[in-house]
């Protein structure tokens, strides 16, 4: 039994757990023909898993593959650096310094603020540096809206020059950044991950549960992540499907009692694991400042809609306060 809600990776252990949502053949065929594809989906709908599933499939074909997590890219330079490393390009490196914290990876000293000409210069160099040979397919997972717009919009024509076929996942919340011209023309194919229907939900549970008989009683869920969250609770005897349905109603009712901003945030963060107020991604998605985000997270906490924990994020010093939406 494996009811983890984490994204499935491109490994032989995770592939059997993946259940097709129907758009996979379209995306794969587009990539094989060299067309850039955008995959749009809600939080928890399985965008990352879908990219990894295709990555796994393409390992047996004549492509050079690279996977870049958009959420870990802080700037266009940072993104280009990651693409270079992934594709094994001897890239015009800035001075590298070893992390003070003892990790192996050197990090790049970022040049002061992004200057468009310099980014374009790097892009031009990258175009020349990517080796000939098998075609490169780049999986780019859920970049933030600003980065997406800068990269596929403002820099579109230069990015187009890269000998790369793109498969990009976009969170529904950030999808408008890809639709605004000039970014809209970059993607030849746009596919949306369909809503989770009953038969796929059952299939997902069957692949996860040793005992299939309980698969029918998990109730409805909007995304695979919420489905698995419910399944975990049922299996851990935290409730039956009926109780979970009642909890859902109660959750929605409690949302009525908080401010509109708080309700919006709760829906946004639901099912995506703990976040902190300093999470730049969340700030950007909502267009809020950090103090504003802190204030609304606190409101959710005092309304019992969020639970707070402390976690160290790998740096010395004060641990971050992490908030997670609770639905029970």
């Amino acid at each position: 039994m494996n009811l983890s809600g984490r994204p499935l990776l491109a490994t032989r252990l995770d592939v059997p757990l993946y259940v097709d949502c129907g758009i996979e053949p379209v995306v794969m065929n587009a990539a094989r023909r060299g067309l850039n594809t955008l995959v749009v989906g809600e939080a928890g709908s399985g965008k990352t898993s879908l990219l990894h599933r295709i990555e796994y499939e393409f390992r047996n074909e004549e492509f050079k593959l690279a996977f870049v997590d958009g959420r870990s890219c802080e700037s266009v330079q940072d993104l280009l650096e990651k693409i270079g490393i992934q594709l094994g390009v001897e890239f015009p490196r800035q001075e590298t310094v070893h992390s003070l914290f003892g990790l192996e990876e050197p990090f790049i000293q970022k040049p002061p603020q992004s200057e468009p000409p310099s980014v374009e210069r790097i892009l031009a160099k990258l175009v020349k540096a990517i080796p000939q040979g098998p075609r490169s397919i780049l999986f780019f997972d859920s970049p933030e809206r600003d980065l997406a717009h800068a990269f596929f919009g403002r820099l579109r024509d230069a990015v187009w020059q890269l000998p790369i076929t793109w498969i990009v996942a976009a969170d529904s919340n950030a999808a408008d950044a890809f639709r605004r011209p000039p970014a809209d023309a970059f993607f030849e194919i746009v596919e949306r991950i369909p809503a989770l229907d009953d038969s796929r939900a059952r299939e997902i549970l069957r692949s996860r549960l040793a005992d299939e008989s309980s698969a029918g009683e998990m109730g409805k869920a909007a995304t695979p992540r919420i489905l698995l969250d419910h399944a975990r609770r049922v299996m851990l005897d935290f409730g039956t499907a009926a109780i979970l349905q009642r909890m859902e109603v109660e959750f929605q009712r409690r949302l009525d009692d908080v401010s509109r901003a708080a309700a919006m945030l709760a829906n946004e963060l639901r099912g995506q694991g703990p976040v902190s107020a300093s999470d730049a991604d969340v700030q950007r998605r909502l267009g809020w400042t950090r103090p504003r985000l802190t204030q609304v997270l606190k409101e959710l906490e005092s309304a019992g809609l969020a639970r707070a924990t402390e976690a160290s994020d790998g740096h010395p010093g004060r641990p971050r306060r992490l908030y997670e939406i609770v639905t029970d």
Partner: protein
Amino acid sequence: MGDLLNELQQIHAFDPTVRFEELGYLHVPFDSMHGKTTVESRISAAMHRGDRVALIGTTGNGKSSTASYVVSPMNEALIAFRIGVTVEDPDLLTNPGRFAQHVVRRIARDAKEVSEPQRIQLQLDVAETHSVRAERSRRTGAKINAKVFELSGELQTVASSVDQPTSSHEFIEALDHALDLVRTTGAVPVLVIDDSDTWLEVEGGELAATRRSFFGPIMRMLAERDCGLLVAVDERYLDSVDYKPARNGSLPDEIHVPRLRSADDLELLLAHRVTQVEGSKVADVFNESVIVKMFTEYERSKLSLRQLMRLVHSSLYHAAESGNRQVGPAAFAASVREFVAESR
């Protein structure tokens, strides 16, 4: 024959500074030395079962060599990853989740280190004698069991999934994923930690807290994973309060690295090192009485094996200097005098 002395000296046959993987090739198993199955065989059996072992010994007496021998890349049934704890980031050693992330990265990195010649040789791997395989492993620069190579790409994927700061739980889940992947080869994954003596001399302060947390929560996290766990532990830790949680819980199985028991033991050891120069025998290098003298000194001064081997190394120099073809008592005595003078 003076050439042989020079050659042994030049290749540091007795006093090598080698990579962890190479230590195993130079190791003479205590089990074969003593005709028992209490050290290497016991550790090996535990690792094959996916159990945990604390390998106890004092500094320089062969903990790392023993560990390296047991988990050598030519052992088809084990895939060992050496996890260093000598790291600069203190959070890595106080936070089980971060340590799990560290282990995942090491596993992914090591999987890439299967060399091309090793991969080719893997195809040819059939039943061969231990020494033939050992020699070949060494020649091909084997660092890790080559079976793991086909998983390299998948292990990179798992490692990249923990690049973002996430919860401890997710780091540990990724570690389980990596270990399960290694198991798909049919071999047992083994984590080896042989540098925990880094905090030995530490008294109080932040580093003492690191030591406490390493032998406490971190060791517990590792003990709960489905893999073999081999930790070299300095004898002096055994009475420490900080080590107690490991002793009582995570690492209950303690195997002691023995000392040499006789001049015969020492002769076996020297003989093995001498064969690094092809065709040479122990009697070509040492006269009979000197080995007894060496053993007596080892006992009398409670030398560590490493100290004894350094003395042997400098004896080569003294013997050659006096124009001798063999190391005799005089050359060894000169080395001891030097050693005593230095330690003053």
